[in-house]
């Protein structure tokens, strides 16, 4: 037996033996927070009011790049009701997640249209709005850096001081005298040898525009600076309160412990509310206004203009393949048009070097990823970042390769997909515990009814009817992008009535974290779901630490932390119960709200009777309030080597496959998605109802990226579509006729009950699958998103077979 087979057999057995009958895990429980949300009683930061609160409005730069010659705020300051007016002259604070490259207010120069130039706090929104209109700014318009090619020429630099920008060293690599915010690389094998072995070499370029996250609740925050204590209190729609606190402390030069961040319900996030956004600006306004609380809520137009986007991307890929379909070499360059500031963008770029090869074993490969500054609204994390974009490149390329070789795209993928014993791009060993992309491909392709590509004759016949149909599929793989030592933690407290209060550090912005944590607690303590109460909202003063709520990692990390906290609770209860019942701890078990003697379960003590310490009939007390905690820190992950990209970045790879049937109107270019079959190797479904919801939502968000959405800028990088009228997202009319989710459950042995995250994954290769289906339907390859009716119809009209 080879080492590869041995490894497979041994881990395969562990996975097969994995326990899968649970009382609460996997069950389709209702969302715990649903009652508040259907009655209008759920409170969001948008709804928050603080006594004495002022309202802020922001003045934005109308130009992508301009010198600020002068700012005159005298009229604004004189307006009755105005309590504070600030500009770049009043502050020299820098802010940034991975690179401290952004002034709180533009200073000397504006770098994107929409950047904050000044802001006002006043007693009413109307007064603040009027005051902003009274601020007079004189600009000297400068030539902006528009597009990747111009940025790479480096004739004009978005940041002159790029070499001096404070950044996370060893992870991000800004290039001096350039517009490259970070250059990241990975490589394996030898490209030259690989291409020499290839029978065919195919080179292509794929691209996609910036898109908006569109949380229905726009960004909103309240800040109050206490001039006596120096402490700051924030209420925010943020998805990562602890990261926000850390960055705000760094920007303001104060202690983290002097900042309190409260996050109530959040009305959608999708990555756009990770990091730090409005908070520094309103902290400064509150300080200027003598400590009055200041609220800033963004309009939808500001959400498009001022807040970060998903970056536009261009992927150049050259693949070497043998006649039998084995890919032997891939040389890929990803360039991210990331806008004026790095924010999360550099991390998106970094993600591409470990995720950008697709879920394939290709022996010789190189990925270069460049996050590039340009003068436009900056970019940040967006659902499945670094993967949707790179899968648009890889999964289209793989499909085109199979066309050129005349091999069925299913067979082509089967030949190349990762399996146990293979190494990923960064050298991680794949085991059965990693999950199986092959299982996902087979399941999705079966469900969609794939029988092979259409022939040219079939296409011609159908074309005459005006509507053509096609089927396509594309693989999904995604691992969380996070620091290798990221942590989650949980605190549990037993109540006198036997209920359990659970405090989390992660934010439930709709993904169902509160419900998942409740189920895991119920499972471990063997209590009914009604007796588990996850405390709503997160406050950094009281809730336990969590690095960030991003990247589909909470179920895994928060789930493991919950298991540990619950087991710690059981352990503490057994300690006391062994004294009460005069039985050794080892002879005790737990269930149904009791610690009991295994030999005679009638010898028992209720959880609730130990909640605050146990009282004997004579009044003697032992034990004390039952408070437990648990944490989970990612295990054995590493930073990547800068030159080779080798290392261990992935907490968990969740594999999947989307397959779609579409109908395309050959005259209008309109694409109708008829059916989607989506398979994911989620290890273990934690809540069937909520995984289903993730799939339904992710698929439609993916359809948005595929056929509808995208920012449009003019030649000077001024945004042309900052509203729902022109920057549309899917409505109920865009819902596919049928979506079939398929859950594959190859357990990950270090995940909670074997589970992996499945959230972003539900979206990320929908565009690729639709692109592949468009080829099947029309025989035309599209290389650029979105596949709007306009783009598709023009493509067809051009008579070309390749539309760039």
């Amino acid at each position, binding site marked *: 037996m080879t080492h590869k087979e041995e490894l497979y057999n041994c881990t395969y057995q562990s996975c097969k033996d994995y326990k899968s009958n649970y009382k609460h895990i996997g069950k389709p429980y209702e969302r715990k927070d649903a009652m508040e*949300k259907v009655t209008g009683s759920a409170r969001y930061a948008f709804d928050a009011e603080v006594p004495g609160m002022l309202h802020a409005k922001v003045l934005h730069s109308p130009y992508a790049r301009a010198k600020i010659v002068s700012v005159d705020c005298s009229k604004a300051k004189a307006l009755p009701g105005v309590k504070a007016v600030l500009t770049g002259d009043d502050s020299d604070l820098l802010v940034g997640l991975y690179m401290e490259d952004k002034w709180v207010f533009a200073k000397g120069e504006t770098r994107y249209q929409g950047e904050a130039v000044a802001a006002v706090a006043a007693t009413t929104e109307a007064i603040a709005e009027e005051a902003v209109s009274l601020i007079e700014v004189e600009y000297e318009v400068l030539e902006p850096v528009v597009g990747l090619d111009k940025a790479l020429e480096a004739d004009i630099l978005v940041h002159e001081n790029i070499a001096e920008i404070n950044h996370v060293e060893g992870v991000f690599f800004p290039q001096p005298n350039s517009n490259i915010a970070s250059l990241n690389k990975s490589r394996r094998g030898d490209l030259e040898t690989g291409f020499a072995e290839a029978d065919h070499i195919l080179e292509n370029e794929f691209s996609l525009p910036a898109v908006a996250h569109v949380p229905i*609740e726009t960004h909103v925050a309240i800040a109050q600076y206490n001039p006596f204590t120096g402490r700051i209190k924030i209420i925010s729609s943020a998805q990562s309160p602890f990261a926000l606190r850390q960055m705000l402390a760094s920007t303001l030069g104060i202690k983290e412990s002097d900042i309190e961040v409260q996050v109530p319900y959040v009305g959608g996030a999708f990555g756009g509310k990770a990091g730090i956004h409005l908070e520094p600006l309103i902290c400064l306004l509150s300080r200027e206004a003598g400590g009055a609380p200041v609220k800033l809520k963004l309009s939808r137009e500001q959400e498009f203009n001022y807040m970060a986007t998903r970056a536009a991307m261009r992927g150049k890929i050259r693949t070497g393949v043998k006649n039998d379909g084995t890919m032997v070499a891939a040389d890929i360059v990803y360039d991210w048009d990331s806008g004026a500031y790095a924010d999360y963008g550099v991390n998106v770029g970094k993600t591409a070097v470990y995720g950008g090869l697709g879920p394939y074993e290709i022996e010789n490969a190189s990925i270069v990823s460049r996050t590039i500054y340009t003068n436009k609204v900056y970019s940040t994390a967006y659902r499945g970042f670094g993967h949707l974009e790179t899968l648009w490149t890889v999964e289209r390329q793989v499909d085109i390769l199979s066309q050129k070789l005349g091999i069925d795209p299913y067979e082509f993928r089967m030949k190349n997909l990762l399996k146990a014993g293979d190494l990923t791009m960064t050298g991680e060993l794949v085991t059965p515990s990693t999950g199986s992309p092959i299982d996902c491909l087979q399941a999705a392709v079966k469900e969609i009814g794939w029988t092979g590509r259409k022939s040219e004759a079939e296409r011609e016949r159908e074309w005459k009817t005006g509507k053509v149909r096609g089927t396509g599929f594309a693989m999904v793989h995604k691992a969380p992008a996070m620091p290798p030592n990221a942590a989650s933690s949980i605190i549990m407290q037993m109540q006198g009535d036997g209920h359990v209060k659970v405090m989390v550090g992660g934010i439930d*912005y709709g*993904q169902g974290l509160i419900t998942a944590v409740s189920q895991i607690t119920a499972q471990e303590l063997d209590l009914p779901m009604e007796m588990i109460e996850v405390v709503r909202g997160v406050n950094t003063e009281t809730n336990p630490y969590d690095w960030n709520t991003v990247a589909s990692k909470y179920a895994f990390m928060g789930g493991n932390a919950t298991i540990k906290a619950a087991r710690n609770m059981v352990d503490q209860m057994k300690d006391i119960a062994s004294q009460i019942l005069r039985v050794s701890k080892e002879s005790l078990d737990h269930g149904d709200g009791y610690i009991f003697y295994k030999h005679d379960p009638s010898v028992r003590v209720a959880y609730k009777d130990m909640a605050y310490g146990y009282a004997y009939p004579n009044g003697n007390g032992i034990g004390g309030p039952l408070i437990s905690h648990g944490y989970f820190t990612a295990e054995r992950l590493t930073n990547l080597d800068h030159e080779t990209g080798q290392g261990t970045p992935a907490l968990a790879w969740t594999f999947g496959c989307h397959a779609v049937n579409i109908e395309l109107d050959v005259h209008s270019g309109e694409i109708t998605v008829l059916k989607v079959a989506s398979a994911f190797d989620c290890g273990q479904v934690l809540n069937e109802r909520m995984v289903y919801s993730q799939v339904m939502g992710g698929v439609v968000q993916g359809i948005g990226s595929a056929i509808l959405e995208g920012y449009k800028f003019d030649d000077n990088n001024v945004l042309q579509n900052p*509203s729902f009228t022109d920057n549309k997202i899917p*409505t109920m009319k865009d819902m596919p006729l049928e979506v079939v989710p398929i859950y594959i459950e190859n357990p990950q042995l270090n995940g909670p009950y074997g589970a992996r995250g499945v959230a972003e994954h539900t979206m990320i290769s929908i565009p690729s699958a639709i692109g592949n289906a468009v080829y099947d339907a029309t025989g035309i390859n599209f290389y650029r998103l979105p596949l709007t009716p306009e783009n598709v119809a023009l493509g067809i009209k051009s008579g070309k077979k390749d539309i760039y």
Partner: protein
Amino acid sequence: MSEDIDPTMLLLHFLRDRLKLFGTKEACGEGECGACTIVMDGEAVNSCLVLAIEAQGSEITTVEGLSRDGELSILQQEFINGDALQCGFCTPGFLMSARALLDRNPDPSDDDIIEGLSGNLCRCTGYRQIFEAVKRAAKREREELSRS
């Protein structure tokens, strides 16, 4: 009820700022997303496009008025049963658009539901479960009506 107001005040802001009925949300302020939908004299309207004074003498229902005596309406129950919500921010608007639809047309076709709710944007759910919830609620409401 009767209140003195600024004639330029929007109905949305009257509900939220004056009456502190925070269930009705604002997400675009331009009538393009439906988050602020309320039922006014039987019609679903975007309360961000209506002046408060235009509502004089009208009967207004907001999400807070959907349940009676602490009992959820069938529509709300079906939203919970069908997991027709995630972040919840658009949910009140959807509930109100659906309420107006079912009051007007107790037996809507699939297309009627899609048409009636396509003015409401949701970024989380992908709409499928909202659609199904409204369909089931319509059926249950009809059954309830025929029983009574």
